[in-house]
């Protein structure tokens, strides 16, 4: 899936400034850029290199080491199925299978219409409410396969 995006260079510079262009904040800067586009467009790498005074290799190394940053475009809604231990023994894998079948994509993939990305996350810390999923910043707990699918259908309906 490829889509053209227009990069708001001003906003990205504002983000870098908010961390005083400190190279120690590289990961947080990339996370904030991710919040804008749901991924870090590789086009911004030269700017990060220049403004933070770090090597390209370090930027790629950090971007690929941490799970919260992606260099690949992701959907408008990022669904994270919690696969922490408490959710696992309460049936998180069934929720994952149901969502995967519903959206017709595998774990880590994005739907063709770029609406949803399905990911697994290692514990969101809502262990008493498992199985849990998050959609962007919203948390949904106490789910099973059918209620999880229902939530995604609601997002689908609201998006069209």
């Amino acid at each position: 899936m490829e889509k053209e995006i227009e990069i708001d260079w001003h906003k990205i510079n504002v983000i870098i400034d908010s961390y005083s262009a400190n190279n120690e904040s590289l990961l947080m800067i990339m996370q904030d850029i991710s919040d804008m586009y749901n991924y870090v467009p590789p086009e911004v790498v030269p700017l990060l290199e220049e403004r933070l005074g770090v090597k390209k290799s370090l930027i790629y190394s950090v971007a690929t080491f941490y799970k919260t940053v992606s260099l690949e475009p992701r959907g408008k809604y990022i669904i994270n199925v919690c696969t922490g231990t408490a959710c696992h023994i309460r049936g998180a894998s069934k929720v994952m299978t149901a969502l995967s079948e519903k959206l017709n994509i595998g774990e880590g993939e994005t739907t063709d219409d770029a609406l949803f990305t399905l990911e697994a996350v290692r514990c969101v810390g809502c262990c008493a409410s498992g199985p849990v999923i998050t959609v962007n910043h919203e948390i949904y707990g106490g789910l099973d396969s059918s209620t999880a699918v229902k939530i995604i259908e609601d997002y689908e309906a609201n998006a069209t």
Partner: protein
Amino acid sequence: MARLVNRNALERLRNSLRDRQVKNTKRLISLCAGSGCAAYGTAKVYHTLNEELAKHGLKDEVEVKLTGCHGFCEKGPIMVIHPEGIFYPQVKEEYIHEIVEKTVKNGEVVNSLIFKDPATRKKVTYEHDIPFYKLQKRVVFGNNGIIDPTSIEDYISVGGYSALEKALFTMTSDQIIDEVKKSGLRGRGGGGFPTGIKWETCRQHDGDRFVICNADEGDPGAYMDRSILEGNPHSILEGMIIGAIAIGSHDGYVYVRHEYPLAVKNLSIAIEKAKDIGILGENILGSGFNFEIHVSRGGGAFVCGESTALMASLEGKPGRPRAKYIHTVEKGYKEGPSNLNNVETWANVPVIIDKGADWYASIGTEGSKGTKIFSLVGKVVNTGLVEVPMGTSLRTIIYDIGGGIPKNKKFKAVQTGGPSGGCIPEQFLDLGVDFDELKKVGSIMGSGGMIVMDQDTCMVDVARYFLDFLKEESCGQCTPCREGIKQMLEILTDICNGRGKEGDIELLEELSDMIQKFSLCGLGTSAPNPVLTTIQYFRDEYEAHIRDKKCPAGVCKPLFHYEIDEEACTGCHLCALKCPQEAITGEKKKPHNLNQGRCIKCGICYEACKFNAVVIK
């Protein structure tokens, strides 16, 4: 609010806040806004409650407070109505009208909405009478349900920052360290290293010293730290400032998971407010002492909970651990002496300084002092956060506080210590939980995750689950961890898929020994624990998978199928209605049939049947 220029100003502020509280005759409704309750819909309840209060013209007479986690997350969203302390669990928008009409306006209890104890089937009206809370000792977690975490005034009014005042104006650095040493406080992240000794060692090394809070709570199934960060962030800041005075540091960092957005938000608000009134930053309370705290967000890497990896991550690099020939208390972040403690450890510090080391050391066991917060989750009736004195038995935690196993199923094991821990079987339920006891049976207390497993949990699958987790999270630097875990996972996956061979168990044990001995950091050296303890206590399950090609718990799909027990089946037809594959047929009131060809083993019929007529074969 005005800046507090000296200790008297803080005292005056506290007194005026308390006065205001005494004079305040408003009814208070506290609504839990912790992440557990939020997942069940606190936001909607809050919105509806405010609308309803406005409709009745009660907005000025009733205060609605969004608090941190109350701990009883199973029953979220939780609402407590003060001054009576009337407790409403699992509040829905549609209940609000009745609650406002009866309880808020007239103090009348809505009987249909109060808590029903599943053990005694008795209804309980007040929060403090609920068995889940009654048996706990909430030293660190107690204020969570009372204060608004975004209000520094709330924290000060319950006695917050009085320990800081005491440390800053009446104690020397040595006295603070001695007090912490005497209290017997040990690292709550799981390591159990004596905190006072760590501080003392860090102080002995010259250079720019750093005080760091490890809020990278990575253990899946544990969320104590999240709830303190979200619900009482000032208690962590207060602990860190006291630590900084003792160690002689002017720069502090909180390394917190990006997956905890509310924790990041509340912590950042707390830092701002503390700086605004002169409790953090330059010249704290006019004492001349300076200390700053910065927030750094992690990126979802489990290994960053390890001290050297965490510090590499703070420096803006990938979080890979290094060998610890030189400890981080000597050379850590930016090569400076760095003192790292976990969230819960820091939150214990103000309590110790405030109430004294002797009081603190009177709680707990010989080697482990104070209380510990556990995340009691999985197949247990009352899931949530439980704070109890060290040494409390597993049985008390799981049965008396947790209410036992749901649906009359049989307890199988409790997993403690996360991916570095192990599974403890029934015969050890009377063990007291502390740093040393659980080690004797092959597990660890760890940071406090306690995942209860019942008869429907497959122990081979649990071992496979943890290794899958660790394979993903291994940073890949050292070969024993990177390759060893991968090989063990392949063997376990084969066993779960019916391809297990004689000799697999022995091979797993051999690989475990190698990984434990030669890995670089704690992630690798403890990685085999979940496998070793499950082999030790549940070898028969491994053998059933390998020899009989059966999964007795009905988890590993290739190794079991469901059947309907004709004698037990009443023909209620519920399973047939729920089956998504239309695999179950039969006439009402007559035993049903299950078509194996259509069955996808989703388990919906097994869960639905009230007569145990769907059986695992």
